[in-house]
């Protein structure tokens, strides 16, 4: 079990009401479940896709700046001190 910092941005931060939290989790899947427990239905309704059980389309979860899709997806292991960022659909330039 690793203690990681989870940072929230844009509309996700409006739901959590906080910039960041510390969470203990083995991997990203477990971390998301912990976030749902912490922030409740409003969080899961906004962020999670009930059909796939994963994040909604275009929501982005990054571990130390790397998208989990390019790591090991929801099974990406977390290490002590990692930073996880959770973004709603956002991008461009």
């Amino acid at each position, binding site marked *: 079990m690793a203690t990681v910092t989870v*940072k929230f*941005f*844009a*509309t996700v*931060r*409006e739901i959590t009401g906080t*910039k960041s939290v510390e969470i203990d989790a083995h991997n990203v899947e477990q971390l998301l479940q912990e976030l749902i427990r912490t922030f409740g239905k409003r969080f899961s309704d906004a962020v999670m896709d009930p059909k796939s059980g994963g994040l*909604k*389309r*275009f*929501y*982005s979860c*990054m571990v*130390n*700046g*790397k*998208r989990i*899709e*390019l790591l090991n997806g929801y099974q990406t292991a977390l290490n002590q001190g990692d930073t996880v*960022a959770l*973004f*709603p*659909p*956002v*991008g*461009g*330039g």
Partner: protein
Amino acid sequence: MGGRFLRVDLMSGRIEKKPLDEQLVHKYLLGAGFLSKMLFDMIPDNTDPFSPANVLGFATGLLTGSMFPQSSRHVIAALSPLTGIWGESHAAGFWGAELKFAGYDAIIFTGASERPVYLLVEDSNVQLLEASSIWGKDVFETDGALRAKHGRQSRVLSIGQAGENLVRFAAIMNDRDRASARSGLGAVMGSKKLKAICVRGGGKLEVADPANYLRTMDELYKRMLANPFTRGRAEFGTTSLIELMQHIGRLPTYNMRQGVFDGYEKIGGHAINRGYLIKPRADWSCLQRCGRFTSVPDGPYAYTGGSPEFESQAALGSRCGNDNIESVLYSHHLANKYGMDTISLGGTIAWAMEAWEKGILTAKDTGGIDLSWGNHESIVKLTEMIAFRKGFGDLLAEGSFRAAKTIGRGSEKFVMAVKKQEIAGQEPRAQKSMGLAAVTAARGADHLYGFPVLDEVGFDDEIKKRFGSKYLPQMADRLNPTYKGIMVKECEDYMVVVESVGLCKYGTQIPPEFYYEDVALGLKIHNGLDFTVEELKRIGERIVNLNRLFNARFGITRDDDALPERLVEEEAPVGPSKGQVVELESMLSEYYSHRGWDSKSGLPTRTTLRKLSLEQEGQSLTRH
């Protein structure tokens, strides 16, 4: 409505209303494609950008003013005084749609006036009028004066003092806060003594297929509204990209020395929404609403007006090491007021700040202005001084490339530019496709010509749909250079089509909601034009190749497709992209291969030109 354009000779004052050449539309569409062809034919070799021989074109897209989502765009083009090559810039707002309603698709200006003038377009009444009373006024004053005179519903496009003073990165502004900022086209307008174009149109919206029009447009609207991006765009615009870019290590900081900035939260979307946001703003037919109005209520940086978007926040904030958000908002406001490109403005000041840090520039050079990183008072002061070419501002008004040439003493290596134009807000070591796109873009360093954002936060499904699953996962990985050549090539082809039909990149590229088939549907329903997806792709490719031929006439070859040494040789020092460099040569070779360009010269081969029916235009290659 439409089907014709205005040709205005500023030397003689002659105004002609000319029909659009249908064959030209079939080969190049309108907007960027139309101007690419017109100006390729009209601008002579060896033209000085500030001479009367330069041609300044304004064009709407085929769908501008329609009900297609985000169809507000117009395009401006000329030989750029900043780069000396193809100059092109685009903006949203309402001016383009108004020009359509007045009955014109485009305006081409030739020559130069001896005295300040502005063009009034009121349906069939088109006149060049005396502008001495507004010459010297800023953009907001000019907008107010012309709308007071010609009606509050008129739409005004103008330059501010920066354009009049030939600042090489002067913008052309419309609807007060919308900027055609890049390429320094405001200075071309200033050199022609053309202050403004005031437009009022009373024409009807005519559509090709009225029976299916509303149903089809309604379906497109619903798709756009249902897209997961749309809600967040309205709430944060592009301002929260600061936070995203920080987390992927792509936030240009300290003159692109690194891609992360300790003060990012202070200049990001949350900071603006919390303290300064009035409300989002939408342009013609826009559902994304990424524009905003903001206000700093009091203090030295007080203003009320248009808000910066990500590029301005990054350029005037992190790039200059500045975490004072009110100064970022205010210097952006001044840039709009005087009409300047914030990207080149911030990029040039950041160059000076690094030269100051290294002791190359001193108080003797700057007239006593302290250029320490993050000195927000100096940033604001220089914004004014550049617009009016006062003191040290006169040197910076030339842009970082020319300023470094003048100063010398090793300052050249701190110029973060491609083809003399400052690189936009993408630290390319953190997103390799953006590094490639910056060097292949026709107007010099530019993120929008290709706008290859499909690898930014991962659009794996869209990559699969547009390219095929064999390109995954490499193409979706922003740090992996593999397949970025074909990605940038295809994105460029599509983006120039988008700029030729008058749509926004938000909705066509990010989010990637609408693609060629939707554009083809819009052209059929609105314009009665039948294009297949393959034909549109071919047109996009043709426009990109014609832009390259234009640049070849002004001396561009593969040698010019280069990034600053820092970005290809120095590893990113900190952040999520630590250790990365841009593998430019391999990506560039792949790009040329897909383009059908010669790998040594970087220019289109005869076979490519034949395939694109550009043999005649390609004859220019033999002259150079």
